[in-house]
C-alpha cells in the first residue's frame, strides 16, 4: 500500500514539472518584432500605422481622446484672431501659457510618438531584411514616411523652435539635447528632397503621398524660412508647368465636405476619414452640438463685400437686416448665419448648441447638413492638409516679396478669388508692394480660415503683438500677448525626464 501512495506522489510531482514550455507565454493577439517586416503585407500594415498618425493632428489628449487633425487645425486658428475656444484653451490667449499645461505636453509627446513610428518604419525599410523589395518600391515606401516625418517636425519646430532631432529608433536611455531650428529645418528639407526624388508624379488619387505634396510642403518650409527664391522656383519648375497634376476646385464647398470632396483635383494631400470611425469630439460636434469653438467678430468683419470693398456699416452694400448679404460668398460657406439656425423650421433648428445660438458665430465650413451630429460625430470628411489654393497664395506672397506686385501675383491670388462659386473681383493693379503684401495676407486668412494656417502665419509674420490685444472674446475678456509666446514652452513632463533639455526663454521649467 505504501508503494502505491509513493507512486501516486511521484506521478503528481512529475506532472507538475514535466512541461517546460508551460511557462512560455506570448501575447495571443500581437506579433513579435523579430518576425516583422519580412513580407510586403507586413510592410503595408506598418505603413498604415504611419498614415494613421496623420489623422491625429499631433495632439490627442486634452479635448477628447479621439480628436482628429481637422479639429486640431481649427483650434489652432483660435489662438490667432479667427476664433475662440470656450475653455481658454492652453492659456495662450490669456497670457498663461505654461509648461505644466497638459496640451503643450500632448502635442510634444504625441509628435514624438508619431516620429518614433516613422523612424521605426524607415529604419526597418532600410535594413537588409527588406532586400526582397525592388529598389524603387522600397524608396517609395521610405519617401512616403519621410514626407510625414517632415510634416510633423515642421509643426514641432514652428511651435517650440529648437527641438530634439530624432531620426532613428532610440532606446530607453536616450537623453538627447535640442538641435537648432536651422538644423531641424535642414533635416526636414532632406526628407522632402528624398520624397521629391522618390515619389511618383501622380495626381492625388489613392490617398498616398505624391511628388506634388512633397513639393508643396517644401514650398511652405522655404516660405517660413524666408527663402522666397526657393518658393518661386518650385512654382515655376513644377506647379506652373505641364508636370503639375492639380487644378483648382470650381466649388469652395466641395473642398471640405460632401460627396465631391474625395478626388477633388485641388487637394494635394489630406488625412482621410476612416469609415465608421465616429469620433466623439470630432470637428462637427465640437462646432455644432457643443459650440465649443466660435468664430470671432473680427473674422466676420474681415470678409469683404462682394465687390471687393472692405466691410463697413456705412458701405451701401451693408444690409442691417442680414449682414451676410452682399458679402464675399466664402463667408456663408465658412460661418453659420445665426438667423438661419435659430429659426424654428430651419433644418438646423435645435440641433446646434441646444438651440441657443443668438449672437454666436458658429463655424460651418466642416459641417455637412445631413450629418449634423448629436452626441457622436457625424463627420465623414477628409482633413485637407495641402491644396493648390494654399500653394497659389504661398507663391503670390513670395513673388510679391521677391519681385513686387505684378500680374503674376494678381493672377495667382485670382486663382482662389475667381473660383466659380466665389467669383470675387481681382485685386486691383497698382498697389504698393506692402499694400499687396497685406492684401495677400488678408486673402490667406479668408480663404484658409480654420484650416490651421492663421496662427502659424501670424506667428511667422510676427503680427501677434499687433493683433491679439485687439481681440475681445465673447466672454468679454480682452486677450493679452507676451512676446515670449512666439515659442511655446517645452512641457514640464519632458524637461523632468530629460536633464539635457533646455527651456525656452521666459518660461520656468515647472
Amino acid at each position, binding site marked *: 500500500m505504501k508503494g502505491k501512495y509513493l507512486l501516486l506522489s511521484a506521478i503528481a510531482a512529475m506532472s507538475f514539472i514535466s512541461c517546460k514550455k508551460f*511557462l512560455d*507565454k506570448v*501575447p495571443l493577439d500581437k506579433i513579435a518584432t523579430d518576425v516583422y517586416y519580412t513580407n510586403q503585407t507586413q510592410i503595408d500594415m506598418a505603413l498604415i500605422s504611419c*498614415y494613421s498618425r496623420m489623422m491625429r493632428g499631433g495632439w490627442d489628449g486634452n479635448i477628447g481622446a479621439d480628436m482628429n487633425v481637422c479639429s486640431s487645425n481649427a483650434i489652432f486658428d483660435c489662438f490667432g484672431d479667427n476664433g475662440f475656444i470656450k475653455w481658454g484653451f492652453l492659456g495662450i490667449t490669456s497670457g498663461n501659457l505654461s509648461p505644466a499645461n497638459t496640451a503643450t505636453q500632448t502635442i510634444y509627446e504625441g509628435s514624438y510618438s508619431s516620429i518614433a513610428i516613422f523612424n521605426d518604419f524607415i529604419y526597418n525599410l532600410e535594413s537588409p531584411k527588406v532586400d526582397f523589395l525592388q529598389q524603387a518600391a522600397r524608396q517609395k515606401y521610405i519617401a512616403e514616411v519621410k514626407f510625414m516625418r517632415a510634416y510633423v517636425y515642421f509643426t514641432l519646430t514652428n511651435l517650440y523652435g529648437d527641438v530634439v532631432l530624432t531620426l532613428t529608433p532610440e532606446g530607453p536611455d536616450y537623453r538627447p539635447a535640442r538641435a537648432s531650428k536651422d538644423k531641424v529645418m535642414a533635416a526636414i528639407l532632406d526628407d522632402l528632397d528624398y520624397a521629391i526624388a522618390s515619389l511618383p508624379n501622380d495626381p492625388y488619387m489613392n490617398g498616398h503621398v505624391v511628388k506634388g505634396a512633397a513639393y508643396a510642403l517644401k514650398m511652405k518650409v522655404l516660405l517660413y524660412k524666408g527663402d522666397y527664391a526657393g518658393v518661386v522656383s518650385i512654382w515655376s519648375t513644377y506647379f506652373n508647368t505641364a508636370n503639375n497634376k492639380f487644378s483648382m476646385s470650381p466649388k469652395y464647398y466641395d473642398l471640405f465636405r460632401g460627396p465631391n470632396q474625395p478626388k477633388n483635383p485641388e487637394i494635394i494631400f489630406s488625412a482621410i476619414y*476612416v469609415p465608421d470611425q465616429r469620433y466623439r469630439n470630432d470637428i462637427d460636434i465640437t462646432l455644432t452640438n457643443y459650440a465649443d469653438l466660435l468664430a470671432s467678430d473680427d473674422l466676420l468683419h474681415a470678409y469683404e463685400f462682394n465687390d471687393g470693398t472692405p466691410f463697413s456699416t456705412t458701405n451701401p452694400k451693408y444690409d442691417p437686416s442680414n449682414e451676410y448679404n452682399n458679402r464675399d460668398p466664402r463667408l456663408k460657406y465658412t460661418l453659420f448665419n445665426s438667423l438661419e439656425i435659430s429659426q424654428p423650421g430651419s433644418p438646423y433648428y*435645435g440641433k446646434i448648441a441646444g438651440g441657443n445660438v443668438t449672437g454666436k458665430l458658429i463655424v460651418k465650413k466642416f459641417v455637412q447638413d445631413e450629418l449634423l451630429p448629436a452626441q457622436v460625430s457625424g463627420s465623414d470628411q477628409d482633413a485637407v492638409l495641402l491644396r493648390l489654393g494654399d500653394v497659389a497664395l504661398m507663391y503670390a506672397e513670395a513673388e510679391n516679396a521677391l519681385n513686387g506686385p505684378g500680374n503674376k501675383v494678381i493672377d495667382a491670388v485670382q486663382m482662389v478669388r475667381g473660383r466659380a462659386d466665389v467669383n470675387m473681383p481681382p485685386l486691383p493693379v497698382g498697389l504698393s508692394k506692402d499694400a499687396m503684401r497685406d492684401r495677400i495676407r488678408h486673402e490667406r486668412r479668408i480663404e484658409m480660415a480654420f484650416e490651421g494656417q492663421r496662427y502659424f502665419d501670424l506667428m511667422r509674420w510676427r503680427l501677434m503683438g499687433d493683433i491679439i490685444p485687439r481681440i475681445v472674446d*465673447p466672454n468679454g475678456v480682452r486677450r493679452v500677448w507676451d512676446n515670449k509666446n512666439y515659442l511655446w514652452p517645452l*512641457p514640464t513632463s519632458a524637461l523632468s525626464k*530629460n536633464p539635457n533639455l533646455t527651456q525656452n526663454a521666459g518660461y520656468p521649467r515647472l
Partner: protein
Amino acid sequence: MEGETLPRNIQLFIMMKKNYNWLQPGTLTQRRWAGPKQAIFFLLYGSLPAIAFGNPVADKPLFYADVRMTFPVKGSVRNAQGDPIPGVTIVEKGTKNFTQTNADGLFTLTVKDEASIIVLTSIGFASREVPAAAFARGPVVLAAAEKRIDEVVVVGYAKQKKANLTGAIASVSGEALEKRVSPNSATLLQGVLPGLQAVQSSGQPGADGAQLLIRGMGSYGSSNDPLIIVDGIPGSMPTADNIASVTILKDAASASIYGVRAANGVILITTKQGRPGTATLTYHVNMANYQATKTPDLITNSADFMELWNRAAVHSNSEATDRYQQSDIDKYRASNGADPRYPNTDWMSLIFRNALVQSHALTVSGGTDKVTYNLNFNYLSQPGVAAGYNFDRFTSRMNVEAKVTNAIKAGVNVSIGYSKTKSPAGDLLMAAFTQSPTYGPYLPDGSGRLTKYAFSAIEFKNNRNPFLILNGGDVRTIGLNMQLNPYVQVKFTEWLTWDVNASLSAGYGKTKAFNTPQSTYDWTTGNQIEKAVYASYTGQGLRVTDNNSINPIVYSTLNFHQNFGRHSIGAMAGTQVEYSKSENLMGYRPDYISNLTQEIDAGGLTGIQNGGTATEYALVSGFGRVNYGYANKYLLEGNLRADASSRFAPGYQWGYFPSVSAGWRILEESFIPKISWLSETKLRVSYGKLGNQGTNNYPYQSVLAPTGLYSFDNATINTGLARSGLVNRQISWEETKVFNLGLDLGLLENRLMITGDWFKKNTTGILRRQQVTAETGFSQSSPYINGGEMTNTGFEISVDYQNTIGKLKYGINGNVQRYKNTVTKFGAEQIQASPYGPSIIREGIPYNSYYMYVWDGIFQTQAEADASGQSNSPKAGDLKIRDISGPDNKPDGKIDGYDKKVVPGVFPSFSAGLTITAAYRNFDFSAFFYGSYGQKAYVYGPGFEPFYQGSVPTKEWLNAWTPENKSTTLPAVYNSQRYNSTWSTYPNTWFLQDASFTRLKSLNIGYTLPEKLAGTIHLKSARFYLAGENLFTITKYKGLDPERALGAGNYLTYPQNRIYSAGAIVKF
C-alpha cells in the same frame, strides 16, 4: 521483557472489526508487551489495549484480536448558565465511536471502559476531554469558546495552534462576521482585523465591495490587493454565512509560503463543513430597508436658485443674456411650488428612494461518520437607493467530504454564483445634480414628454434630465462563476499526511449596454428640442461584451509532525501549478428602432464594430516549511517558496522567498516567577521576503500591436501595426522585506488578550514604467523596470476582553492601526491632478501626497484682490492664496508654481475599530464602531462647486460672501464654468477637507427562543434580530460620505447605504 519495544523486523497484522490493515512497527508508540516470548503480547494501539498472539522473532504476521470492553455512558452537557446544550458532538477519543446530545443536552454512548476519554465539541464552545466515569457525577459543563490561545487557526497550507504562532496573524470567526448585514462580505472585514484596511467606496448594488489593503500601500507599480485564498485555492470572498473563519497573514513569516503573490498580505478563508450527526436545516432571512447615508442638501427653491444664479453670473462676468429675468423670478416666487408651471423641483428626491433589500439563505448541514456535507443556497435581491440600479444574486456552495478509509479522506467544494446587475447607461447622478429646480422631468401638460430645460438661454448646458437616461436604456451585466475544488488527504501515519488539492474555476460574464435616442422638449414652450442619445458611457445602440476565463490550479503538500519528548518538529513541502486564460469578444451596432428589441441582430448594419482578445499566464511553485518547538517555550519557524512566472523572460522567471520567525513564551521559563494575573506572554520576531507580480501579463515582450486605422479610399478600413513600446527583458519580481516584532499578552486567565505588532515593510524593485524621455516616442509606453522603492512602517494593537458575570456574558474588542508610507525611490518627481486631486510623487514623503496652493482667506476688498499677485484677476469675495515662496526661496508677490506645498492627509494617520458584545439570558447584543482619522479628501466638481456644468449649489451657498455679508470662509458665489475661478487656476486647500470620522457601523440586537419553546414547535433553535448599518457618523466632512472620500472627492459617486434590517435564523 515488559516495557520493551517490539523488535523492528516484525510486522503486526491488525484486525479491527472489519478493517484489516498492516500496522507499521513505527506507529506503535508507547507499546509494551508482557509474558513469554512466544505467547501472548499485550499491546497498546493508541489508547486501545489489544492482545497479539505469535512469535515475535518469526518473520511473519502476528495475529491480533480486538479485546475491547464495553461501558455505557449516560451524560448531560450544559453551558455555564446551567442550560442544556443540544447538538454537542460526543466522541470516544481515538475511535470513530460518536453521538450527539439531544435537545435536552443528553446523550448515551457505549465506550470501552470507564477510563475512556470522551471528547465534547460544539460550535461556540471550548472543546473538553472528560473521562467516561466523570459523567456519572452530574452534568459536564462546556465553557463558551473564546479567542484563546488553544484555538487552532488556519495558516498557509496548514493549521496551527495559536499558542505556537510566531508570525503576525489576525483571525476572526465567521460567527462574528455574521452579526453584520451587508450584501458583500468583504465589507464585513472592516475594523475587525487589525492591519487590514477595508474601504467601501460605494454602496452601488453589485459594486459595493470593499477595497482591501493590508499594512498600507506597498507598491506603486503593481497591484496592492491582498491574495485571497478560499479553502486553499485563490478565489474571492464567499457569502458571509459560508465563512467558518478568516485569517489574515500580515508579515513575511506567515505569508512567504505564498511567495510571489504575498507581498500585499494574504487573506485565508475557510468555508463551513458539515459535522457528523443529525442533519440540520437552517433558514436565515433578512429584510432590510436601505437609504443613502447622505444626499447633498441642494437648493430646491427655484426663485432662490435663480437669484443665486444671477448673482454668480454677475460675479463671473458672464454675458448679459446669461441672467434670469426678474419677471420670471417673480413668477416662481409667487408660485412657491404651488403652480405646476413654476415648480420647485427636488431632483434628489426624484432619484433617491428607500429600497427594500432581502436575502434568504438555506443551509443543510450534517453527515454520518463516513460522509459530511454542508450545502448552502443563498439569494439576494438588492434594488438601488437610486433609480435605475438593481442587483440580484444567487449563490450556492456545496462542501462534501467522505472518509474513504481510515487513512484517506476525499472531498469536494463546489461553488456556483450567478448575478444580474443593472445600472443606468449614463451618469445618472451627474444628471440629477445638474438640473435646475425650475422645471420637472416631464412637461407640465401631463403628456409624459421629457424635458431638457425651462430657460433655453441659460439652462441649455444642463447635463441631461436623468429620466432621459433612465428611459433610453441601461447596462445589464450577468456573471456566472463556477469553482470545482476536489481534494484528497492521505494520512500515511499519525505524523505524515499528504494532501492533493485541485481547482477549476470558470467565469463567464456578459454585458449589454443599450441606448436609444430620446426626444426632449422645452418646459416653457413645449417645443421639441432634439432627439438624441443621453448615455455618455455607451453612445447609441447596443454593445455586447462577452468575457470568459478559465483558471485551473493543482497543489500537493506533504505534512510531517512529530514530538520527541520536549521537542516538537514539523515540516511541510509542496508544489503548485497554476494557469489562467481570459478571453473577451465584443459586438456593437448603433441603430435600433425601439427599446423592444435588444439583441445584436435587431440593429442596423452601418457603423457596426467588433473586437476581442485573449491573455494567459502560468505559475509554477515549490514551497516548504520547517518548525521546531522546545517545551512549548521556544518556537522557531522557517519558510521558503520558489515561484516561476510566465510574466518574466526565461532566466528571470524564478523568485525565492524565504522567511524565518521565532517565538518565546516567557511564562514557560522556570526562572520567571508566577504572576497570578498574567497567563500568557509571548514575544515574536520575524523577517522575510515576499514577492509581487501584479503587473500585466506580458511586461517584457517586444511586440507589435494593432496601431491606428487608415483608409486610402474613404471605404476600405486598413489596420496598422506598429511597435507598441520599449521593452526590458531583464525585469523580475518586486520584493518586499518585512520585519515584524510582536507581543502577545494574556491576562486574567486569558480573559484579556492583548496583541501588538510593529512592522517595517520595505518594497524594492517596484515594477514600474521607466521614466523614458518623450523624445524616444514611447514615454507613454515605456519599458517596465524594477525601479522604485517604498517603505511602510506601522503598528497594530488589539485588545480583547471577554467575561461572564452571572448570566451576563460580555466582551469588548478594540483595535488600532497606524502606518506611515514613504516613497524611498522614484526618480524625477511627478506632479499630477489625479487620482486624489492635486498631488505629487516625491521621494521621502507618502505616495501621491497632496500638493497644492494654500488657502489664505477671502479677499474682502477689490484693492486687496488687485494686490494679490494672483493671475486669475481675482475679485473681492474670491479665495485668496498664500504667497509662500518664489524663485529666490522667498515670497515674491506672485502666486505661481513656487507657492505650492505638500499637504499631509492622503493616507489616514490611524484607524480604529471597537466591538462590544453582550448576551444576557436569551438576548444578545453587539455594536461595532469604526473610525478613521487624519485623512483628507479633495472635494470639487458638481454639487460642491456652484453651477459646475449647470449643477445646483448646496444651500450653504445662500450664505456665500457678498459685500454686505463678508464671509471669511465661503467665497462669493460664482459660475464655475464661466469664471476663471481660483479653483481652476489655483487648486488649493480650501477644497481639501478633513475626512476623519467615527461611525456606528453596525448594531445588532437578537433574541433566541428558549429551547423548550423552540422544541415544542419542532425547531432546534430560532433567533430573531434587528440590525443596523451606518447608523450615525460623527465627522466634519462636508462632502457626501467621509468613508468613500479618497479619490472620489466629488458628489458624483453612488452613496453608501444606511441599513435598517430585521432577520430570523431558524434551525430545524
